[in-house]
Structure formats: structure tokens, C-alpha cells
């Protein structure tokens, strides 16, 4: 039966056995059933958590699988967020046009990633400097957007409004027979859940195939990978664009969800968040990243209700603890411990 799953299973993902996929089906069934028992506000909230996971998966692909530490996830998040605002406001988008506006916003961010990535990767900016340049880019964008308060800072009818943020963009609508369906509450939740499922399985398929083999080879030893005949810069650029585009998808969805975006999403605390989620979860595994990020977002929000400052301090402390004591990440660590104590979950070593 596992053979049917093909590249969804493989050496680059934790959890390849029957037990894992049964667990996966159970979690998916619970996620599908969840809106039935909760009020629409909670369901909308859950959709909000799911939105961020795309950015985390993108970072896991870049950092955990390919060894590229990008501090720029929130820059692409912001570009797509503002991009969605500018495009949808100017088109007065409704129905399927809102989805096209989202796709166009992600494409703009992907193009930006391609240009930035090209100069960095072909200019041999590597290691920690890659993180520094992407981090500086993020903060520069935040500062730039912050000074756009004046009325002259607008594209068409879309005003940037500096630190007050851009609002007034339409929510996403799904074209439907008769009239479009507004993506909010339960419908939004199901749409994002479906999208997340496609992205998660798609990434699993990607990392367990030939492409993924080259990515981990680059992470382990870039020169060795090149000496096997791989044009590693092309792979690094492709991964940077893909990973950044996933952050852009988060940004576009987030802006459409709240109909609002501010430069603060590209500020320092925000820019550090994807790093913390992914490091805490276990950067070298997609499943660990997905689960860990969701848990962290949930706890972060629960804490923020009491105090945002303390929540931030706790996040910082969590990063320190992870780096010092569980460098491979907590969720990855727990799954390894489970494997050792039960031997039930087939993982990397036990799978060819």
C-alpha cells in the first residue's frame, strides 16, 4: 500500500510508515470535522493560524533542506500583502478576480525573490551573510513602507498610509454557480485547509524525489554536490524563489483575511517569528514544521491575550532553549524519541 504513495514517502521526511499515514488521516478527519463543533469565530481563528504555516514550510524547505537561512520570509509576506491590496483595490476585484489578484501578488513577490536571489546566489553571498542581507532587506522594506504616510504614496486608488497600514482591499471570493461565495469563516477555513494539504503533500513529493536529493546534498556539502555535476546555484535559486513564494502566499491570504496590512509585519519581531517557529519545530522536516508552527501560533495567541510583551519574551526564550538543548527542533526530537521507544514510526534511516 505504501508503494502507492510513491515519492510522498522517502528519505527526506519523518513518518513514512503505515502508522504515520493512519495518524495523518485521523488528524485530517479531525481538521475537517472541527468546524462542526465550534463557533464560526473560532473557526476563523483557526484559519488564521493555518495561513502562516505556508511561510514556515517555505523556510523549512530553504533552511532545513537546502541550508539557505533566509531571514526574508516576512519581506515576501509583506510584498504580496501590499501587492494584493494594490491590485485588488485598483481592479475593484470581486469573484474570481480576487483570486487572480492573489496569484498576481504572489507572482510579484516571486519575481522580487528571483532578482534578489539571483544577485545573492550568483554573487556568492552565502552562509550567515545570506541571512544578514535578507534580514536587512526586510527591515529596509518595513522602514520604506513606514514613511509612505503622505497622499503622494499611492498606486492608482490604493494608498499605502505609512505605519497606519493599507486597508480596504476586498476579501477573497470563490466564483460559484449563481453568485460568488465569500471566503470567510468556515468556507475560508476549508479553502485554506485544502490549499495547505496540497502544498504539504506537494512539498513532500518534491523533497523525496530527485530534486530533494540534490537539495540535501547541497545542504550537506555544496562543493561535493557541484563535483557530482549539479549546477547548485540553479537549485538554490529555485528553492529560494519557491520558499519565498510560500511566504508570499501567506502574506496575500493574511491581507485578504483581515483586509488590512501594515509595515509592522516586516518589522524585527515579526521577521524573527518564522525562524523561531521552524527552529523550534525541527527545520529539516516538513511535518515537524507544520505541527510545531501550529502549536506555537496557538500558544502565542493564548499568551498574547494576557501580555504581548511576555509572549515575545517567551518566544525568544524558546528559541534560545531550542538552539542550546534541542538543535534539531522539539517536534523532530519528540518523533525521534517516539521511534526509539516504540519503533513504530518508520523514519529516514529505516527507509531506502
Amino acid at each position: 500500500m505504501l508503494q502507492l504513495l510513491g515519492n510522498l514517502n522517502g528519505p527526506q521526511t519523518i513518518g513514512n510508515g503505515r502508522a504515520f499515514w493512519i495518524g495523518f488521516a485521523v488528524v485530517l478527519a479531525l481538521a475537517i470535522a472541527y468546524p462542526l463543533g465550534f463557533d464560526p469565530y473560532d473557526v476563523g481563528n483557526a484559519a488564521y493560524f493555518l495561513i502562516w504555516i505556508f511561510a514556515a514550510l517555505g523556510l523549512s524547505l530553504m533552511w532545513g533542506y537546502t541550508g539557505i537561512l533566509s531571514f526574508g520570509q516576512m519581506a515576501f509576506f509583506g510584498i504580496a500583502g501590499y501587492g494584493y491590496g494594490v491590485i485588488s483595490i485598483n481592479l475593484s476585484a470581486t469573484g474570481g478576480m480576487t483570486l487572480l489578484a492573489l496569484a498576481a501578488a504572489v507572482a510579484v513577490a516571486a519575481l522580487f525573490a528571483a532578482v534578489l536571489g539571483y544577485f545573492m546566489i550568483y554573487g556568492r553571498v552565502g552562509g550567515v551573510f545570506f541571512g544578514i542581507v535578507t534580514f536587512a532587506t526586510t527591515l529596509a522594506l518595513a522602514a520604506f513602507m513606514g514613511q509612505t504616510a503622505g497622499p503622494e504614496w499611492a498606486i492608482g486608488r490604493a494608498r499605502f498610509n505609512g505605519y497606519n497600514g493599507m486597508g480596504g482591499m476586498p476579501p477573497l471570493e470563490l466564483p460559484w454557480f449563481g453568485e460568488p461565495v465569500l471566503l470567510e469563516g468556515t468556507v475560508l477555513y476549508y479553502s485554506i485547509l485544502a490549499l495547505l494539504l496540497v502544498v504539504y503533500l506537494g512539498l513532500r513529493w518534491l523533497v523525496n524525489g530527485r530534486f530533494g536529493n540534490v537539495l540535501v546534498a547541497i545542504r550537506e556539502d555544496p562543493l561535493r554536490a557541484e563535483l557530482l555535476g549539479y549546477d547548485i546555484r540553479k537549485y538554490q535559486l529555485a528553492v529560494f524563489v519557491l520558499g519565498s513564494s510560500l511566504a508570499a502566499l501567506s502574506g496575500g491570504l493574511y491581507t485578504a483575511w483581515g483586509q488590512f496590512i501594515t509595515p509592522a509585519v516586516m518589522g524585527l519581531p515579526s521577521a524573527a517569528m518564522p525562524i523561531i517557529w521552524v527552529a523550534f519545530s525541527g527545520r529539516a522536516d516538513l511535518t515537524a514544521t507544520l505541527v510545531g508552527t501550529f502549536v506555537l501560533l496557538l500558544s502565542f495567541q493564548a499568551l498574547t491575550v494576557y501580555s504581548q510583551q511576555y509572549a515575545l519574551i517567551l518566544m525568544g526564550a524558546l528559541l534560545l532553549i531550542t538552539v542550546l538543548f534541542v538543535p534539531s527542533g522539539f517536534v523532530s526530537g519528540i518523533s525521534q524519541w517516539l521511534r526509539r521507544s516504540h519503533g513504530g514510526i518508520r523514519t529516514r534511516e529505516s527507509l531506502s
Partner: protein
Amino acid sequence: MTAMLEVRGLHKHFGGLNVLADVDLVIDTGEIHCLIGPNGAGKSTLFKVMVGTYEPSAGTVRFLGADVTLRKPFERVRRGMSIKMQVPSVFRELPVLQNLVIALQQRLPKAGIDAEAERLLTLLELGAQARQAAGKLSHGQQQWLEIGMALALQPKLLLLDEPTAGMSPEETFRTGELIQRLNGEGMTVLVVEHDMTFIRQIAQKVTVLHFGKVFAQGPVEAIVRDPRVAEIYLGKTHGH
């Protein structure tokens, strides 16, 4: 015999330091060619210029008739070179089998990879360690695995920089046998080495590098008997 790799008028300097000066070297198709010389002679620099990790200050490198002087390493590999660097570099966190698969998928479709990986594991005597992380292998086994990864590409020219460094005499001897067997199957091999016993075992032609220049060149028997070579090099390492 036709030239597989041809180096002409090669210079390499780092700032004011001249490491290679006017080096000519021809590796003919089908031979095992050894590059020797005392420490600091410029062997590794010459090797790096040949594989493309260093750009020469002047001179040309031609491979199979084409000028590859400014070509990147991966482009040279795709033309038929295969390279093992001095420091063993395997993908340490990945299983031995996956190390080979990453190399094999470069030239084989998915269907052919398993059988070929199995064949290489047997050849390298690493069958029992196939699922172990490559970083857990002994030093000699890592060297073999890396040679295996280089072989996986089925190269026309195999370039090995000190392939027996850190190996026991027995492992060294078996590595020599492997290289001779590959050469018997038609592969051209260039080896950078220190170990004279090993060179006597495998070499057909030897180039001696000294202070960045070609000091002597010829069949291994002649080089071993050359008193000038013995003076600069063999005298110090005889019986090594």
C-alpha cells in the same frame, strides 16, 4: 595516443606568491598518470585548476579537445570528468546508499538506479553499511565511498587527490587494485599522491612537480631511477 587532458603554459599566483609557473601536462587516453612532488610543490593547486575550483592566472586547460579553462566544475563533470578531492567529502548525515543514489541519478533514470547502486555497494564492500549515515564510516571507508560516488558518474577521466590518505597499507593496496581494474576497463586516471609504494603499484606515467614547475616526466621506472628526483623527493620519503 590522444590527449584526454592537456594543460599548457599554466600559471597561478596568489598575490605575490607564484604557486605554478609555466606548467605543461598531458594526460593520454587510457593511462594512469601520477602527479608527485614534495609538500608545497603545487600539486593540489594544479589539481584544483584542472577540476575548475581555481581559475588559472594564465594558460589553458583542454579536456577532450575543448577549452575548459573558464568552465565551472559541474560543467567539466558533465563532459566526463569525475573528481575526488583531498579531504574526504561525503554527505555525512545521509545514508551511504543515498550518497550513491545522489551521484547515480545524475546519469541514470529512476528504474536503473537501484541495480547500479547495489553493484557499487558490492564493489566498495559497503553493502552492510548501506543504511548507515556516511559520517559514521571509518576514514578509509569514507574514502572508498567517495571514490564510488566518482565512479557512479562513469567518467572518462577520474581525478583523485590523495585517495589513500589515512588508509592502512592493506586498504591502500586494495585501492590500488581497484584503480588498476578500472583502468583495465578503459578509464583514464590521474592521481595526486605522496605514497611511493602506491605509486609504484599503479602508475604508468609520472609527473614530478617541484617549486611549481614540472621537474621531471616519464614512465614510472625511469622516474624512480632518476637521481635528481630521488634527491628532491624520493630520498626523503623512500621506504614510506
